């Protein structure tokens, strides 16, 4: 029987103890002594959120399929256990082997959202690993960061030995080889870091120095160790049809997680080029997985896991080139095996509605549109590539097809937004309601139409055309939300319209971390020391503490969030090469100001730079 790291006394006193006991179906559970290299993968949030992450599952598979390595899993202990572990000085452990994190050779931490940063420090602290990479000894694991937020790693630079920029499939085998050789030779840590620094896509922050102008902007960012590359180009898989690691036998958590389903990644990247969207830029170019792979993998995942649902995942699944063929296969298979299909990111058109009609069967739940902006002018500014006619036509078809609930997602506080744009949100919702009453004859109506609109606040992200743009202040956000609310009251069909907004002050912090530099790291550390953790969980965010810390350290939202940055400013993340050039982003920022739409990748190439990777949509139809 496996020996558990926590006593029964503790496990029986905390919420959901199975978060910490491992042993899930399809977990590898490799014997500790059977391998040379011990890696622990950490998603710095609570188990149920963390287990949903596909990137983690891919890396878990990639490491464990090697006979000389194992990959275990680490999660943030929930606040109840966190408290006990601190009080009793119990070191953090990985769930499968139940071994202390500090006994691993490698600790991989994924940064999926900025608000998890204090949790990362919590992980290191509870593990007994010094927070600063520069304080770590030969006894500490090498700490590698990856994931979406590493595209601006600078706020977290002090806490990581290495960042891996890009997709794991290309270089982790080499990383494992280096670490295994290092372990066998008893090599010094610094030598290992120097070797890792030369691997494409890997960035060792302590080999670089940032200098700042008097006004606080970045003056220079240069390597101070000859092994550090001047520019770090992200790693991507150019050919998705290669034999890549994939969780074909996904771990099945005992406790219900956020994702109680199999995840089938149909493609990477997005052709659309919405100007607010970071994912749409950093994952360029679009690369399809092959239809054969998807068919085979879907069946294998479902049979090996017993999941009752499969999720077709990508940034815009309707844009998958062989979407119709994939559904022709999946629909009958899933019907026969009583499996639900989830397609979270569909564009609403006739084809999608037909698909939804088939997968939702009799239960016509609500339809979701994401116009992101209320007015056509602002949708052009953000390059949403969606016209009002398309939205209303989509709604008309949906109503004809029997739906009477529509959800609309908008963002407030986008760059160049005017009062008219804000007021256009309720107007658009009302127009959709009118379409319902025009389209559906009275005798066929089943109750009122329900149009739910919700707004989130826009956060400016690096590597987007809006990276120069100022963010709104908290009070501006609130004013805009109030204006939307008032305008809703003036609409003809107001009784069919519902409006929600989230007044989250975490928006400002998110902005600070997203475009911050190395100095922001000091604030993260200080806030953590003053008790901040689980900031992503609204109710635990100690916003006052954060404001105090920023004030004490002399860091301001003025500098990081509210100013429009000059077009020639050197950004903390400029040393990272995502393929898409800064010139292209600047061009897009200019076009945004002119309200000009840029066609999507399949309509016309706009020369963003991502062609340098030699694959994907940039080469479609050129065989």
């Amino acid at each position, binding site marked *: *029987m*496996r020996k*558990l790291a926590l006593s*029964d*006394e503790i*496990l*029986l006193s905390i919420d959901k*103890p*199975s978060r910490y*006991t*491992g*042993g*899930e*179906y399809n977990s590898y559970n490799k014997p500790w002594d059977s391998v040379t290299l011990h890696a622990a993968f950490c998603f710095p949030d609570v188990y149920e959120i963390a287990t949903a992450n596909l990137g983690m599952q891919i890396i878990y598979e990639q490491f464990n399929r090697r006979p000389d390595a194992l990959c275990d899993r680490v999660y943030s202990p929930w606040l109840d256990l966190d408290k006990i572990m601190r009080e009793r000085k119990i070191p953090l452990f990985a769930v499968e082997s139940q071994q202390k994190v500090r006994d691993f050779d490698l600790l991989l931490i994924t940064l999926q959202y900025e608000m998890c940063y204090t949790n990362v420090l919590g992980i290191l602290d509870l593990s007994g690993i010094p927070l600063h990479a520069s304080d770590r000894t030969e006894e500490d694991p090498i700490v590698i960061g990856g994931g979406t937020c590493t595209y601006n790693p600078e706020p977290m630079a002090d806490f990581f030995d290495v960042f891996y920029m890009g997709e794991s499939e290309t270089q982790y085998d080499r990383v494992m080889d280096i670490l295994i050789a290092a372990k066998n030779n008893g090599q010094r840590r610094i030598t290992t870091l120097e070797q890792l620094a030369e691997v494409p896509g890997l960035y060792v922050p302590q080999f670089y120095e940032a200098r700042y102008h008097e006004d606080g902007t970045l003056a220079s960012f240069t390597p101070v160790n000859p092994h550090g590359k001047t520019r770090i180009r992200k790693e991507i898989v150019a050919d998705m049809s290669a034999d890549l690691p994939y969780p074909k036998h996904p771990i*099945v958590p*005992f*406790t*219900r997680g956020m994702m109680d389903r199999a995840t089938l990644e149909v493609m990477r990247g997005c052709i659309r080029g919405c100007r607010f969207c970071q994912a749409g830029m950093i994952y360029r170019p679009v690369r399809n997985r092959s239809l054969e792979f998807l068919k085979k993998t879907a069946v294998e995942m*479902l*049979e*090996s*896991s*017993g*999941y*009752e649902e499969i999720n077709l995942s990508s940034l815009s699944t309707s844009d998958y080139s062989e979407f119709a063929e994939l559904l022709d296969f999946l629909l009958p298979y899933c019907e026969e*095996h*009583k499996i639900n299909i989830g397609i979270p990111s569909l564009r609403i058109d006739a084809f999608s509605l037909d698909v939804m009609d088939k997968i939702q*069967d*009799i*239960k016509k739940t609500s339809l979701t549109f994401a116009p992101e902006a209320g007015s056509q002018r602002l949708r052009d500014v953000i390059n949403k590539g969606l016209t009002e006619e398309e939205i209303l036509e989509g709604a008309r078809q949906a109503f004809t097809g029997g739906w009477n609930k529509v959800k609309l997602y908008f963002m407030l506080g986008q760059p160049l937004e005017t009062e008219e744009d804000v007021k256009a949100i309720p107007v658009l919702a009302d127009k959709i309601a009118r379409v319902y009453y025009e389209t559906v004859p009275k005798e066929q109506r089943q109750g009122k139409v329900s149009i739910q609109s919700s707004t989130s606040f826009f956060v400016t992200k690096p590597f987007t055309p809006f990276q120069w743009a100022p963010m709104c202040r908290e009070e501006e956000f609130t004013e805009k939300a109030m204006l939307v609310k008032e305008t809703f009251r003036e609409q003809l069909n107001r009784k069919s319209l519902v409006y929600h907004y989230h007044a989250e002050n975490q928006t400002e912090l998110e902005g600070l971390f997203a475009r911050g530099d190395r100095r922001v790291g000091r604030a993260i550390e200080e806030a953590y020391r003053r008790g901040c953790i689980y900031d992503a969980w609204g109710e635990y965010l100690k916003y006052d503490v954060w404001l105090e810390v920023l004030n004490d350290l002399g860091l301001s939202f003025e500098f990081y969030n509210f100013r429009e940055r000059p077009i020639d400013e050197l950004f903390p993340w400029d040393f990272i090469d995502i393929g898409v050039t800064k010139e292209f982003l600047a061009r897009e920022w200019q076009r945004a100001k002119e309200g000009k739409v840029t066609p999507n990748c399949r309509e016309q190439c706009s020369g963003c730079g991502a062609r340098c990777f030699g694959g994907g949509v940039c080469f479609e139809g050129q065989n």
Partner: protein
Amino acid sequence: MKVRIKFSKQGSLRFIGHLDVMRYFQKLNRRAALDLTYTKGFSPHQEMSFAAPLGLGLTSDGEYADIEFESLPGSSEELVKRMNEVSVPELQVIDAVLLPDQAKNAMSILAGADYELSFREGYEPEDPEGFFKALEDYLSRETIPVTKNTKTGTQDVDLKVQIREWRRLPGNRLFFKVDTGSRSNLKPEFIMECFYESLGREYDPLTFEVNRTEMYGEIDRKLVPLYAYGRRF
């Protein structure tokens, strides 16, 4: 066709709650590609019911679930093998029997259960002989009236009636055969709690590791193991 399976839940699976065990079986049954009966309607689910939830922290070698099949996968042995191939080592199917058409489900006929208690590490009595002597004295009384806290208030019960059998096992362990089910229900930890109280000592709920070993229905005042209601196929 209704099949009753008996299964174990050991080791770290003692921290998996009852709802999660039900979810686990739904997926296990799919992995084993069993031909099960699904309910009709918008969201079809497997027709399956469990004899009795096992408390968090307890282990068992005698759990039961009744599952409705469309067609049987060969023999009992084959079904057990197929399910175990797609289960974790700490949850294993031990037996499978086919129930008569009119059989009631395990939950509704449940009347008794066997438990084995062993002292958790660090909780052993200093004087085991003295401990068991005192327990013997306590459980040998004519009646053992105690008051039980229930959801709605308190209830006076006689432990003597609810304990059908008990004995000391080698290694300072204890065996109890007690009433279980909707008519009369007794948890062995409650017996120990009452015993400690009778000695004027506080009972720490972590004192014993509890393993359920069998569950029973009742026919003519005799306990019949739940698997004996069907036959191997």
